[in-house]
């Protein structure tokens, strides 16, 4: 039985950015942290522990998966685990994208009506 991605919506802002950060491919914790800050224009600045709390929750929900690094010689200091979107995670992200798009469209229409 497939899980309905809509049941996960709406996503919180940090969750949305974490999933969005993983959309192009797998990443280490630190790369996610930097990407989230960049994607949000500096508004979502996660601490290490907050990031990992969110990661733990997303793992429990099967939205992301934890992978062992297959790189034999990783860059020094980098964690040996990385994270990737699961199929469900990708579907949830797409569903949130559609939801946000609908909201933006409605907002644009109403604002245009108000301005006219």
């Amino acid at each position, binding site marked *: 039985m497939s899980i309905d991605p809509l049941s996960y919506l709406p996503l919180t802002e940090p969750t949305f950015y974490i999933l969005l950060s993983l959309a192009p491919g797998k990443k280490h914790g630190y790369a996610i942290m930097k990407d989230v800050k960049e994607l949000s224009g500096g508004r979502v600045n*996660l601490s290490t522990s907050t990031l990992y709390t969110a990661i733990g929750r997303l793992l429990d929900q099967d939205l992301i998966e934890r992978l062992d690094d297959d790189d034999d010689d990783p860059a020094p200091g980098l*964690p040996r685990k990385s994270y990737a979107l699961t199929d469900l995670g990708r579907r949830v992200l797409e569903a949130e994208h559609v939801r946000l798009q609908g909201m933006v469209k409605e907002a644009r229409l109403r604002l245009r009506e108000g301005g006219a």
Partner: protein
Amino acid sequence: VKRVYALLLHLFPRAYREEYGDELQAVFDLSLDDAMRSGGKEVVRVTLRELVGLPQAILYEHLRERRKKKMLKKFNAYFDFAYGSRREFFTVMVPFLMVGLILPLMNLLMRSGLLIPRSPFVNGIGIVLVAVLGILFLIGLVTGLPRWAMPYIGFASAVLGVMATPDILRLSQREFPLLYQKFRLVGDCFYANAWCLGLLVVVILFMVLGGSVSVFRRFRDDWTLLCFIPYGAIPMALMVTFEEYKNDEPFMLLAVAVLAAGIWFYLRGRDERKRFGMLFGGLTLAMFIAAAGKAVLLPMQDWPIVMSPDSWKSEAMGTVNTWIMLALIMLVPVVLNLLPRSESRLRAT
């Protein structure tokens, strides 16, 4: 600052720290190194951000750990049946009912044309049965091998044994052809029941672990639990016994009914010897029914071989051999329990 952070990580639950501690430290170190390149203000900002986020994360992880433990406890409690209860009895009975009731019923339905062999429906039922057995076996392992899980260990060992036996037979015939020819009769008898060997290994392993590993110590306190392991292999023994036989369903059903009675009285009994007697009696009677069944059914079989009037004897003897093997395995814990014990062991028990 990095060292202080490493110390603070000890405030997380141990399991979480072991899983994510290194990663948290590595990411923190990288954040701090980056901040240091940007100047002192950034270092202070990053440190403050981390210190503010940490208590909330620690609290959250402790609560999550407690929730997980509570759920596990609830799960364990669900499968922690009262001794001798009906739920315990029916959970033990699952593999017995599958082999002695559901499979014969499916055979009957297939013979009467109501079910089509190898159809998606029949295959689906097969998959569900295997899944139920597998899940209950795993639950037995996860919940610390409760009493009801013992026959599942025996059943799994027997299934693996049956699957591996043809390979062992082929390998030994190839590697030791002369030895095989010389002792062919003994060899055939042994090979026919070689699937029981895995069972023997499991019983001995549990006995050995009972002397040293705390989880297995209760097998020393109640040695009949070890006899309950081979009891779980009897459904497989019946399947092997009646392999290629037609119209074996009534005998299978009768044998499983006897085994069910053995389980019922074993689970509800208090005296160890009587409880062992129930298991041993169940095994003996069930295998006797199987042997008698083969003797009765043999003339009705349409096998493409010529059968002598004494063929039933050799057929029934095969089942007697299986009974001997299973009975010996069941007796191993009894014999070892009767052996004199050292004083230190007596004190321990």
